[in-house]
């Protein structure tokens, strides 16, 4: 019987040498004349173990990692095709505590299946949500999504069902479903992992959205920094069209729907929904004033469902298992699961999908294992470049939209970036302003000019020029940006700046004073 070997094609695994590992395994299979095949799966998200190779044995899957190309011959010598022991043996991957402790709803298949094999997808519960949706009325589909409590996982946390309801209720011959795959926040990679590891779940989610609101065309706006995701998505779309999941008759129904991948061109602000729409229309990616909402006047002025990858990828399980099942996870107004991405200076970086409610301390210390450098954790930035820096004193904050907002932070797209005690928080505050200046679309003054002035003020603080006045100026500037900016880029840049200032004021004192304090 042909043995199946899994070697991830996930970008993270590729960045750590998975391609060479796969080539070496293929070479050994050939020279040793063995009956084995390689499947390029997604990543399980245990990145300190990547490239993680898995073998399908009669006793189940067994994993090895991190595998370097030079380890491959010894794996064959140890008969890893039958699950043989080796120095890199990890045993049953599902039993690795990091994975065993997770609640994988949206990521159930990521790292498990062949991302572009539809049969594999269906064998693992795929398309069940879409099949159910096809038997429901649009209003019932929307109600299920609303009742599930699913909120936008892109960062804003707006209820997904409410958006859909608006699009459903807005009359129009032409409507669109647009997937925001412009995952630009540093410390986040869950969208990329889904697109590379289980693209059909996104296709299924978008198709359900289309049926619910009456759209016939969908776009995935993908950032240009993700060329591997583009490849997997296009392969999966071709398979879905051939199998009749997409096209003139979705799974034999009266609904027509197709999806096209559109690549961005390196502009962070295009992750903002209205800037994204302008970019898709072939314009400068500038933010639009709201209202009108994209749900009413979106792409080319037509009613448009606009959701993040994870939001859409969470829809199939809601339809399959029901709103109550999904809503049962989580707490307060944060229902369901959230794929937390643990990154930066951390021992066990990776993806951890769990119900809302873990504390920041549990995530950083318990799951992430503290810093990789072995030094104390000093600051944790949650929610990307526009998210606040949290000190250890706030590690009891539960991962929940409202709890983070109450601490003047945000969970955003759920990226957690850990810094050790060598971090200079004035430098981080300056970077937040610099980043905003580089990426500002230029439409509103608080963001366009404020960010540039913010960099200058930070430089004057660092230079010891009237530091107290400058700090007051910085606070005033942040206030103007927060309340005067058109979108979250200018409006949220104050989060990292003000949190750095509030929680780490010692870093904003001039150098001689800082040294005296130490």
């Amino acid at each position: 019987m042909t043995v199946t070997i899994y070697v991830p094609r996930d970008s993270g695994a590729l960045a750590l040498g998975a391609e060479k590992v796969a080539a070496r395994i293929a070479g050994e299979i050939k020279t040793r004349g063995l009956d084995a095949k390689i499947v390029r799966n997604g990543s399980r998200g245990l990145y300190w173990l990547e490239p993680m190779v898995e073998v399908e044995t009669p006793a189940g899957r067994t994993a090895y990692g991190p595998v370097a190309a030079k380890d491959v011959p010894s794996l064959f010598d140890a008969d890893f095709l039958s699950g043989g022991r080796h120095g890199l043996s990890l045993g049953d991957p599902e039993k690795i505590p990091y994975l065993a402790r997770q609640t994988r709803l949206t990521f159930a298949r990521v790292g498990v299946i062949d991302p572009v094999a539809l049969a594999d997808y269906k064998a693992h519960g795929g398309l069940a949500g879409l099949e159910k949706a096809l038997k429901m009325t649009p209003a019932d589909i929307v109600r299920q999504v609303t009742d599930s409590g699913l909120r936008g996982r892109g960062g804003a946390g707006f209820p997904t069902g409410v958006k859909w309801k608006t699009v459903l209720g807005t009359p129009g011959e032409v409507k669109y479903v647009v997937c925001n795959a412009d995952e630009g926040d540093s410390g986040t990679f869950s969208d990329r992992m889904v697109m590379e590891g289980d693209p059909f779940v996104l296709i299924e989610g978008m198709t359900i959205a289309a049926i619910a609101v009456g759209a016939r065309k969908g776009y995935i706006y993908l950032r240009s920094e993700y060329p591997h995701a583009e490849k997997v998505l296009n392969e999966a779309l071709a398979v879905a069209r051939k199998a009749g999941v997409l096209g003139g008759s979705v799974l034999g129904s009266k609904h027509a729907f197709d999806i096209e991948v559109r690549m961005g061109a390196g502009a962070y602000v295009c992750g903002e929904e209205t800037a994204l729409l302008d970019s898709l229309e072939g314009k400068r990616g500038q933010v639009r004033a709201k209202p009108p909402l994209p749900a009413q006047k979106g792409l080319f002025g037509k009613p448009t469902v606009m959701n993040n990858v994870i939001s859409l990828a969470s829809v199939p399980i809601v339809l399959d298992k029901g709103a109550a099942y999904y809503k049962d996870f989580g707490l307060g107004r944060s229902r369901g699961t959230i794929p937390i991405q643990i990154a930066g200076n951390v021992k066990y970086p990776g993806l951890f999908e769990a119900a809302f409610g873990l504390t920041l301390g549990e995530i950083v210390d318990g799951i992430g294992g503290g810093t990789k450098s072995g030094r104390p954790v000093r600051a944790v930035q949650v929610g990307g470049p526009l998210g606040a820096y949290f000190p250890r004193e706030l590690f009891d904050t539960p991962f929940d939209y409202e709890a983070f907002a109450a601490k003047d932070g945000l969970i955003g797209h759920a990226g957690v970036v850990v810094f050790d005690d060598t971090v200079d928080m004035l430098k981080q505050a300056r970077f937040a302003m610099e980043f905003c200046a580089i990426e500002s679309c230029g439409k509103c003054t608080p963001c366009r000019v404020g960010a540039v002035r913010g960099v200058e003020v930070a430089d004057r603080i660092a230079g010891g020029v009237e530091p107290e006045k400058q700090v007051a100026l910085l606070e005033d500037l942040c206030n103007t940006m927060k309340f005067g900016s058109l979108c979250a880029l200018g409006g949220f840049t104050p989060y990292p700046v003000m949190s750095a200032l509030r929680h780490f004021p010692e870093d904003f004192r001039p150098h001689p004073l800082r040294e005296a304090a130490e």
Partner: protein
Amino acid sequence: MTMERNDTEIATRTLAVVETWRDAEGPLLPILNGVQKEFGYVPDEALQVIAKALNLSRADVYGVFSFYHDYRDRPAGRHVLKVCRAESCQAMGGDEMADRLREALGVDWHGTSRDGAVTLEPVYCLGLCACSPSAMLDGEVVGRLDEERIGEIAAEVRA
């Protein structure tokens, strides 16, 4: 005369890209992406051709071209190295690694080395935050940048 032939060639190749997207909705970005792929940059001549073909003003097309960080107005080096400068990579010593790279390659941000071997571009997140610091060399991803990997990158671009 060489100039003229060159211009004609740019126009022909640009029009071929425009043609593939003729029936698409909002075709300007895919066209600019395609033109950059075709030439390695977006020639000024191409902007005029695109404007005419799409019935847009040249200012409109230039405005879009100049908005996006990806587009270049001149050819890059033989290799393009994008190095992440965002927070997760900063937390893992990315700034130091970037400094070493600039030194090893003899090139600054947005610059091309004098031998034309490599163009260095900053990028703000490659989604490889679980293996920071990260980079992308000619579209291929590189994680956990360290002295050894920097040496390999320097050797590869000089080869």
